[in-house]
């Protein structure tokens, strides 16, 4: 009997060695996924106001997850599937090829874009669509295609169709300056001003329905918190208590605002119910408590407090209102923002004489500095949780920059409006 067992085990061992060879892959390439965005064939008969394929290529390149092949390196410019020479694209090391055509209908005065995304390695068409729009909507269509391509390949919703809000400061004369509140596409293009003032403006924040912005303005002579409808520009004052009225932020259900008020003598954090105008004081400490932000489930807040002597990040349940200190590395940690899944926290961290955007893992407490620029501030997370927009100093000007949450991709947003600061990334807009 024992002999049989031994023999069987031995045979099984031989068999297992032969049949169950399993290679474990736990690491991947550090490089971005190669993709070729072939310039869309223009069949409209005239010049197109926007280079749609270029917008798409830039979108995907900026995400940090894709490496778009320059047009100059392409061996051919196919317009449809049967023109794709897979061997060529494979030799160029491309995993995906995006091709398309653009037509114009004089009767409807609309452009029609048809595109196809092709998997070079499996030689299969993985996405295809026909979209139409007027000339003004071509940028929007391009972002929509970028979103679709990003999502089908990565499984994560793209943020190229979202908006950003930011504040610029323009020096009009030596003693006169103008603060402006802008809303633009996520790539910084298509910007339009929705409010301006000669007095300071601060802390814009989007409502979760993407319809409103809240911010602080001094244009009435003292700090006050306002809510403004983005499309109609209709503005209403929410609070203008004596002293500080700052750092407003919408709750996840848009029913209330978090804000910092000093009406009771010291900067404390309050919730303000937008339906009843009722205030609920969350903190009560002689230190300064400010820059509060909601957790994704709306049950907690994180905020900056100098109650320990230096600005540090604290976490507090709305229910029991007992703060817990989260950051212990460095002398300055401020302006905290939760990740979309609530598993990480992003904030401004001071180290090596500079201010950087850092992340802390809420489970392990492990901290990672994401940016290498100096004087970084005001981090704002993209709605898909993949990118962080912040303001930083570049060539003595304040500009907007973006970094991926793993610190991989980094880029600056172009601006010709003087100092740009206080970015706020919108939610997904449908």
């Amino acid at each position, binding site marked *: *009997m*024992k*002999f049989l067992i*031994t*023999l069987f085990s*031995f045979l099984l061992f*031989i068999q297992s*060695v*032969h049949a*169950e*060879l*399993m*290679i*474990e*892959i*736990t*690491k*991947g*390439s550090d*490089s*971005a*996924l190669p993709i070729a965005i072939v310039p869309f064939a223009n069949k409209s008969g005239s010049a197109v106001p926007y280079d749609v394929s270029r917008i798409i290529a830039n979108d995907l390149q900026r995400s940090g*997850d894709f490496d778009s092949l320059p047009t100059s390196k392409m061996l051919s410019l196919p317009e449809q599937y049967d023109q794709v020479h897979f061997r060529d694209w*494979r030799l160029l090391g491309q*995993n995906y090829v995006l091709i398309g055509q653009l037509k114009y209908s004089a009767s409807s005065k609309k452009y029609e874009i048809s595109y196809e995304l092709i*998997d070079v*390695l*499996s030689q299969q068409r*993985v996405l295809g669509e026909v979209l139409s729009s007027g000339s003004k909507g071509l940028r929007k269509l391009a972002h929509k295609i970028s979103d679709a391509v990003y999502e*089908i*390949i*990565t*499984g*994560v919703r793209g943020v190229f169709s979202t908006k950003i809000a930011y504040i610029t400061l323009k020096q009009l004369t030596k003693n006169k300056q103008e603060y402006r509140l802008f809303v633009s596409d996520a790539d910084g293009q298509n910007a339009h001003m929705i409010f301006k003032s000669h007095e300071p403006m601060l802390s814009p924040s989007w409502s979760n329905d993407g319809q409103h912005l809240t911010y602080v303005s001094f244009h009435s002579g003292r700090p006050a918190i306002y809510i403004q409808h983005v499309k109609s520009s209709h503005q209403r004052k929410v609070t203008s208590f004596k002293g500080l009225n700052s750092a407003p932020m919408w709750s996840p259900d848009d029913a209330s605002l978090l804000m910092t008020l000093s009406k009771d003598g010291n900067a404390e954090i309050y919730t303000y119910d937008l339906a009843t105008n009722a205030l609920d004081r969350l903190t009560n400490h002689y230190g300064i408590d400010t820059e509060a932000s909601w957790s994704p489930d709306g049950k907690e807040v994180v905020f900056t407090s100098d109650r320990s002597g230096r600005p540090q990040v604290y976490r507090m349940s709305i229910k029991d209102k007992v703060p817990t200190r989260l950051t212990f590395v460095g002398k300055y940690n401020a302006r905290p923002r939760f990740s979309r899944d609530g598993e990480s926290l992003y904030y401004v961290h001071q180290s090596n004489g500079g201010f950087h955007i850092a992340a802390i893992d809420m489970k392990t407490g492990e901290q990672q500095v994401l940016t290498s620029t100096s004087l970084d501030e005001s981090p704002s997370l993209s709605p898909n*949780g*993949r990118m962080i927009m912040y303001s930083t100093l570049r060539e003595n000007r304040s500009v907007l920059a973006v970094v991926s949450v793993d610190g991989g991709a980094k880029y600056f947003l172009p601006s010709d409006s003087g100092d740009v600061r206080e970015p706020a990334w919108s939610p997904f807009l449908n």
Partner: protein
Amino acid sequence: MKKINANKTKGQTKIALLLDALKAIFKTKDKRFLIASVLLHIVLFSLLLVSWQSSEPVKISPMPNSVQARVISLDELQALREKREAEQKKQIDEKKALKKKQELKRKKELKRKKELKRKKELKRKELKKKKAREKKQEAKRKADEQKKIQVKKKQREKRLKEKQKKKEAERQEKIKQEEEQVKRKKREQRLLEKMQQAELELERQLEAERVAKELSRQQELMLAKELSETERFLSLIRSRIENQWHIPPKSNGLSVVLQIKLLPTGELSSVRIIQASGVKAFDQSAESAVRGVRKFPVPDERSLFEKQFRLFSMRFAPS
């Protein structure tokens, strides 16, 4: 009609009633009623006659033949009157005393009768109680007797049962002992056989182990050589795949297993997902990584290729 009847005399009414009664009687067939009726009428007439005599007595005033008178004075008259009144009073008192005496006598008699009746009743009750007590005692005596009989009967039955039980237990014990003896004998037999078999088995095992050991030693030498070669190629393949794998964002915790079939030249023959992650983009990224390798590094030795690299699996799970 009623008014006429009211005007008739009492005698006429009675006669009319009588005539009606007679008519009714003569109409009946039963003569007993006739006789009874006649008798009843005689009685009624007699009563009628008596009634007349008593209701209207005839007063006859005797005619005085002569009158003797004596002249008395007023005092004497007064004395006579008083005397008569005294006599009358005396008579009344005597009558009253007599009546009172009779009343007392009657009451005494009534009381005596009542007492007699009470005593009689008491005596009757006593007698009844006595009888009931006697009856109860009798019933109790009978019940006790019955109980004693039952107890005796039960004791007798119990003794009988115990006797039978003891007898049965003795019988069972005997059977058990006999069976135990048979079993013991069988066990001994089996043990003996087992020991013999074990000895044979041990001999066989020792021989088999010796053979297996020899075989294993040879195989291990061969495997060691193969495994080192296999490891080398596995490492090369892993490196190529890692260079090609672009892990999608938010893939932590996902895992996909692919089955890969190669040609002896190292070219990919086929790749298929055998255990999906549930996230299409992640599975697609792993498949693309495999397809992205133009030529897999494989051993030239055909037997090793066939054994290890013709068909193998690959698990993609970012750490």
